């Protein structure tokens, strides 16, 4: 079994990681770098719980071979936490009771962050579409959508409706 050493910038830090053949980015982030906000819901691209940013773009870590991310910048929820850039979104999730078991929440937060970077004032329909790849099995989507609406309003400085 050949091991390759990848050069990744993960959450702002340059890291060299040895990986086995066809290891997924999900395995590398969770098992080697202990970034367990990256969940393993389905490992089939269907749930969004492994959402991360690769070079700023929303991607599914389970469908990404770690080697395809060699040389890239990878951001997980831990990284967004460190920069504090996610706090208003988290606050809004708390206030709206948008997390019950919390399993889907990291993916929801990363997808929300990706949306608001691209589109700071999304409509309700745009929020629904932007989160359509992220499944929640227990909270229900209405509080989550409301949380994103409120976070967008707070971040763009207008009063929440």
């Amino acid at each position, binding site marked *: *079994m*050949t091991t390759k050493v990848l050069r990744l910038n993960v959450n702002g830090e340059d890291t060299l990681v040895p990986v*086995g*053949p*066809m290891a*997924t980015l999900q395995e590398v982030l969770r098992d080697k770098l202990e970034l367990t906000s990256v969940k393993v819901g389905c*490992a*089939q*691209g269907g749930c*969004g719980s492994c*959402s991360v940013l690769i070079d700023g*773009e*929303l*991607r*599914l870590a*389970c*469908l*990404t*071979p770690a*080697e*395809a991310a060699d040389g890239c910048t990878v951001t997980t929820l831990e990284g967004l936490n460190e920069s504090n850039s996610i706090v208003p979104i988290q606050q809004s999730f708390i206030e709206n009771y948008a997390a019950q078991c919390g399993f889907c929440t990291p993916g929801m937060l990363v*997808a929300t962050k*990706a*949306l608001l970077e691209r589109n700071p004032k999304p409509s309700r329909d745009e929020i*629904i*579409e*932007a*989160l*359509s*790849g*992220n499944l929640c099995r227990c909270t229900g989507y209405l509080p989550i959508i409301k949380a994103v609406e409120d976070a967008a309003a707070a971040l763009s400085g207008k009063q929440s409706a």
Partner: protein
Amino acid sequence: MPEYIRSGSVEEAVGLIAEHGSSLWIMGGGTIVMQVLESGADYWQYIMGLDGLALDGIERANGSWRLGATATATQIRAQPDLPALAAAARMVGGPALQNAATVGGNIYARSPQGDLAVVLLALDARLHLATADGEQAPSLGEFYDDWEAAGRTPPGLLTAIEFAEPAGEVVFMKCGRRRFNSASVISVAVNVAQKDGKVTEARIALCGAGPHAQRCAAAEEAILGGKLDDAAIARAAAAAAAACAPVTDTVASEWYRRRMVGVYLRRALAQLA
């Protein structure tokens, strides 16, 4: 587990495909390949990624479009001048998936996947395949015929997809279980040109109604040459429902798919009547 390899050029990639034959599997965005690998299948010695080949350009020149094979659904949905193809790209999974899913991979996807391929069939697209025997440029329809005849996908590296600026109006419609991020029950694409109240050109393609996306000659014949009125549309819808060969899977039954082929083809054609 197979080894992940990359090539530095299309020539090198073609050489690797020729050298390793069926022990090498090409990976575009990996949204299908990775699913298969994660489900435990590991027949391959090599997975060849296409990143680094710069095959993701989208160009429009001299009345035709050229999509690089690794152009993503996200890139395609941002093309306002390709409304039907953009609408289909928007319906491929969710946004994170669209950032990975390539148009090239969609052509090789098995039904009911193939929402981009079904529009490309209606656009009569031509493929550019780099093979050890040189470049080949079959139409997408011929490519699928070869696939069926040989029982496996034609060998080679798909580098680009080309089609002329459509003469007619193109409509894509998808029947899914949810509004966004929903596997297709079926999808349909129609490309119809009309002159003096008569249909002069008709290309109708179905996805989820056979092993891969395919044209439906019976439905095309039902509207060609006449007025696109309710009767003609009903004939086309009935012909498509009768001619198609959908499968039953976890998304929908064969019966339901056949019904939806008729319903959605009728709705799509009604937009052009």
